[in-house]
């Protein structure tokens, strides 16, 4: 069985079978990570460049660790410390790197569609590690893996995605994935942070009421308020946002069930999530990070087979 694509640009163009294959392969890589030697030789003839045009801690470390656990050779590129700062174009930079015999490119970029552009112009496999406000496919996959691990299934689950839906590539990848796998999705947040036609476009429920959404869902994936992406004021203050959409212990205690709490990080503690929620036993935030390595190993492994 093989993936239907040689790049991972987004969840949008994956099939249901692709997603199932990545998730089941990730289960086996999770087992690898529990062994005394947490490493397999699968990619020892593969060289990967991590091209980060935008800041990242978690995703970059996670990819780098996944690559090392697969025995790949890796090189790291950060735009701020490279010739990109001297005005070199994206394609020139990448072609220069590829001439050093690099097989795969992991890229994060602030421009939506940058990895798609790259995939059309270079022979190497491209993996999107987050592009602008479009997609963050490996985050979508690791969130799905974590939901499945915790609840045993994806199909039929009720998942709420709460917060800044408008600027969130994590939300978009999660929605594509969960809908493809048969879960129900509700997006919840202030009207200014939810795209107007999202219900028609992506088949999700829309709610502006946090309490109702929490009553409805089995899993709440809480997004970070992305202050760096907001050029205009979309809500009056962080304090006001927190009062209307912040998840507190008190809110969860009044539910007659225990829902699963997720967050892609980094958390703004006391804004979208209180500390006693983030650190509680119903939160799987740190498992998400752990699963991220296994899921990225699965993606890299499955894409590495396609010769240039």
């Amino acid at each position, binding site marked *: 069985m093989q993936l239907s694509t040689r790049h991972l640009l987004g969840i949008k163009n994956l099939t249901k079978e692709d997603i199932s294959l990545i998730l089941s392969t990730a289960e*086996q890589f999770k*087992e690898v990570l529990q062994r005394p*030697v947490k490493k397999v*030789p699968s990619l020892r003839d593969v060289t990967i460049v991590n091209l980060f045009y935008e800041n990242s801690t978690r995703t970059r470390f996670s990819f780098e660790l996944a690559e090392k656990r697969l025995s790949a050779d890796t090189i790291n590129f950060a735009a701020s410390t490279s010739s990109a700062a001297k005005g070199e174009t994206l394609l020139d930079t990448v072609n220069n790197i590829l001439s050093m015999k690099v097989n795969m490119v992991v890229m994060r970029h602030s421009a939506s569609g940058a990895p798609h552009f790259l995939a059309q112009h270079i022979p190497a496999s491209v993996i999107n590690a987050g592009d602008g406000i479009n997609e963050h496919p490996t985050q979508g996959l690791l969130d799905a893996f974590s939901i499945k691990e915790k609840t045993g299934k994806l199909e039929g689950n009720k998942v709420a995605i709460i917060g800044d839906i408008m600027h969130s590539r994590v939300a978009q990848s999660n929605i594509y994935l969960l809908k493809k796998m048969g879960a129900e999705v509700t997006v919840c947040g202030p009207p200014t942070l939810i795209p107007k036609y999202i219900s028609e476009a992506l088949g999700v429920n829309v709610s502006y009421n946090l309490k109702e959404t929490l009553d409805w869902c089995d899993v709440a994936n809480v997004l970070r308020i992305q202050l760096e992406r907001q050029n205009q004021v979309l809500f009056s203050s962080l304090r006001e946002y927190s009062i209307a959409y912040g998840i507190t212990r008190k809110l969860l205690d009044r539910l007659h069930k225990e829902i699963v709490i997720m967050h892609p990080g980094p958390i703004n503690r006391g804004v979208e999530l209180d500390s006693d929620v983030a650190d509680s036993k119903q939160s799987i935030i740190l498992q998400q990070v752990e699963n991220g390595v296994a899921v990225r190993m699965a993606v890299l492994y499955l894409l590495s*087979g396609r010769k240039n």
Partner: protein
Amino acid sequence: MQALLSSQQLSDTIKQLAAELNKVHADKKDVIFVGIQQGGAVIGGLIVAELQKMDPSQKAQYGQLDITFYRDDIRKEILAPDAMNMPFNIENKTVVLIDDVLFTGRTIKAALDTLLDYGRPAKVELCVLIDRKEHRQFPIQADYVGKTVETKKSEKVKLVNGEVVLL
């Protein structure tokens, strides 16, 4: 399609291998039986079930090893892995690897590489149902053999409907 072992012969061969293993490993405390996915895991399960019948007083520890990530032809084709089930510490234990067919020896080489990432066993033995001896590409031989057969390199030996057949 030619039958190498009928279902009756298969069952007799499994019993014979189990008896040999039971004789050598009368004390099962420090022995771990490991079937190689997928065919070896099936045969391993049958052998261990027989062992358990022969000596119900001791539990035979049985795991399954998947070698997908260690194959030396990985760049030819990427395969989806099978389940790995190795919930024990193999450090200083005797591990008996079990496979259905010993052919080129490459699977066993990959299995040894996989196994050593779980620890350093005191000893590793190999038990196979069918040995296609003349096609070996690596210096590997089995300690317990169900049946040695002469085959053409292009032929395949498979377990189909409870019989071992040559395709």
